[in-house]
């Protein structure tokens, strides 16, 4: 079922369930102004590992796969992201190349924000900055879990008996 592109953050019914989107009205309005929304079909590449970070991509609808690649072309999945999640955030923030390749798995509606506009937005809207810190922490937890499973062959943290 094809659905019309949801262009306005203000009218989006999903926004209160989503970490990034749950911002005060004025902040959300500002974000709405700096984003452009596009549709991406399954198989499209949002960005490639190692390329300069142009901006962030917020998945309004759909799914994407984040992966890393060896010199020989072997690919390893880091994470599958779904609606409400942001990709490319750490690279866009620090101005370093994208650490992963993002590929669309399910037809998606993506809100794109250019790096320059994002940085200005964060400068002007403090709560968004804290939101970004929370998002990055979540990303980091996922990455550590992947390190754990790849390096030790486990996916869950061991339960630790309480010390002192």
């Amino acid at each position, binding site marked *: 079922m094809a659905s019309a592109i949801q262009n306005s953050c203000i009218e989006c019914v999903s926004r209160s369930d989503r970490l990034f989107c749950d911002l005060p009205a004025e902040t959300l309005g500002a974000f709405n102004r700096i984003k452009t929304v596009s549709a991406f079909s399954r198989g499209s590449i949002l960005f490639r590992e190692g390329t300069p970070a142009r901006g962030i991509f917020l998945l309004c609808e759909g799914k994407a796969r984040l992966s890393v690649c*060896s010199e020989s072309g*072997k690919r390893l999945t880091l994470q599958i992201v779904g609606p409400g999640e942001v990709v490319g955030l750490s690279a866009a923030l620090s101005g370093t190349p994208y*650490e992963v390749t993002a590929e669309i798995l399910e037809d998606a509606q993506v809100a794109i924000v250019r790096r320059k506009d994002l940085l200005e937005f964060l400068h002007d809207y403090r709560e968004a900055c*804290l939101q970004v*810190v929370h998002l990055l*922490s979540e*990303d980091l937890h996922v*990455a*550590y879990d992947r390190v754990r499973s790849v390096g030790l062959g486990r996916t869950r943290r061991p339960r630790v008996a309480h010390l002192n």
Partner: protein
Amino acid sequence: MRADRIFCDLPASALQSFETIKYATAYPKGAVLFVEGQAPRGIFVLCKGRVKLSICASDGKTLILKIAEPGEVLGLSATVSGKPYELTAETIDPCQVNFVKREDFLRFLREHSDACFKVAEQLSEKYNNACHEVRSLGLSHSAGEKLAKLLLEWSSKNGEAAKQEPRLKLALTHEEIAQMIGTSRETVTRLFADLKKRQIVQAKGSTLVIRNKSALRLLATNG
């Protein structure tokens, strides 16, 4: 001190605020700051000395993720999210650390957006490192490849990168290096012996000299 750099380009009011919430502490070598799986008490800003960050399996197998240097904020993602510490942090030198309690830190971030931004930058760097580790651990074929990568990484610090024959100080034992690349101590010892025999590296006390950088690079890319 270097570590204060993370919060030192901030306006005076933010700095003053930070002063009131930090607890400056000294730790000897071998002290554990926090353990993987523990509820997060707060962040540890490393001012002086180095800290080993590792992940552990229930059978005792350990993976050393990295050696943290002064300037790094430890326990950051856990403190922000409230989830358990991801890593175990153990000092490998006598260290000076600024501890900040979780609630104080979160309030500080809410009140000072510049600090918030710096924290975002550091989280980004950690994410970058973690992705690098995933690639390295998951996609490298052999221990030889991973060791070569590690030596190249270490030899590119402290201005050595441009040199024909960069030097690095081996701060870790063969056992610890094995834990960093996910192999056994015996394999690491064997690999070093092999590198020395082929004159790719040369040991001068605790300093390692990379004699043949291009050979090492070749080893790092196809094992």
